[in-house]
């Protein structure tokens, strides 16, 4: 799949997010498309299981991610390893702490 096609996909998705779904798009919602997406999620589940991992397909296995329990890196922040995300106590998602804790 070429970069141009991927760019089209990304831009199309962003366009969908930027506008309400048109009736034309709604017309294409089908069981097949949704099922394809669900099947796609199995990729993530399969990769998580080193025993069943097809190394030829996915390449050398990364260390299996074992999500830990939620923890607090700061007095008013709670982080959720399974989501790779942090939230403010009493509030919402905190992008900066999420980046600091999980992306570095």
């Amino acid at each position, binding site marked *: 799949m070429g970069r141009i096609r991927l760019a089209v996909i990304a831009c199309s998705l962003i366009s969908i997010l930027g506008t309400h779904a048109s009736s034309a798009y709604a017309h294409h919602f089908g069981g097949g498309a949704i099922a394809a997406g669900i099947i796609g999620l199995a990729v993530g589940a399969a990769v998580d299981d080193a025993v069943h991992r097809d190394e030829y397909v*996915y390449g050398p296995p990364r260390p299996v991610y074992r999500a830990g329990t939620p923890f607090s890196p700061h007095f008013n922040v709670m982080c959720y390893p399974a989501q790779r995300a942090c939230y*403010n106590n009493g509030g919402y998602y905190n*992008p900066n702490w999420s*980046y600091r804790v999980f992306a570095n």
Partner: protein
Amino acid sequence: MNFRKLTSAAFAISAFCMLSSYASAQETVNATSDNKRIDAAWEDLLETEGNLLSNAQFVTLTNLAYQAASARVCDNYALDKDKIGKELDKILTAGNPQLTSDQNDERIAAILISFGARYGLFIAEGHADKEDFCANGDKFEASHSTPAPKQK
């Protein structure tokens, strides 16, 4: 699998998450006193994702979805489509070159589903306390991986 199916699938799941999560968002939020995360909904989503992406890629994907949801829920934000499109494109194109075309399509579909589900869950969370959710966006600082929301 063509790109219309991919985007349709992502949007369909996103819509599903919004509908299913929104209905229970308020009661879930009330049951979780520490923050406004919809814990049960996130856990159902996350248990299927495993190691689809690296930690850094997941953080970027989540940040992008959060920004998209902020622009959808809040009147004071606009979506910076170019920047977000480029960041999303980086993740989509970072697949293993050994993947066949069909396997790569599956990978991309899974990523788009993950993005759409995050988008939907953040929208659901945002509507539980819209004023606070939108004020939260004001605190956003541009990270190394994602652009900040663009104020109108």
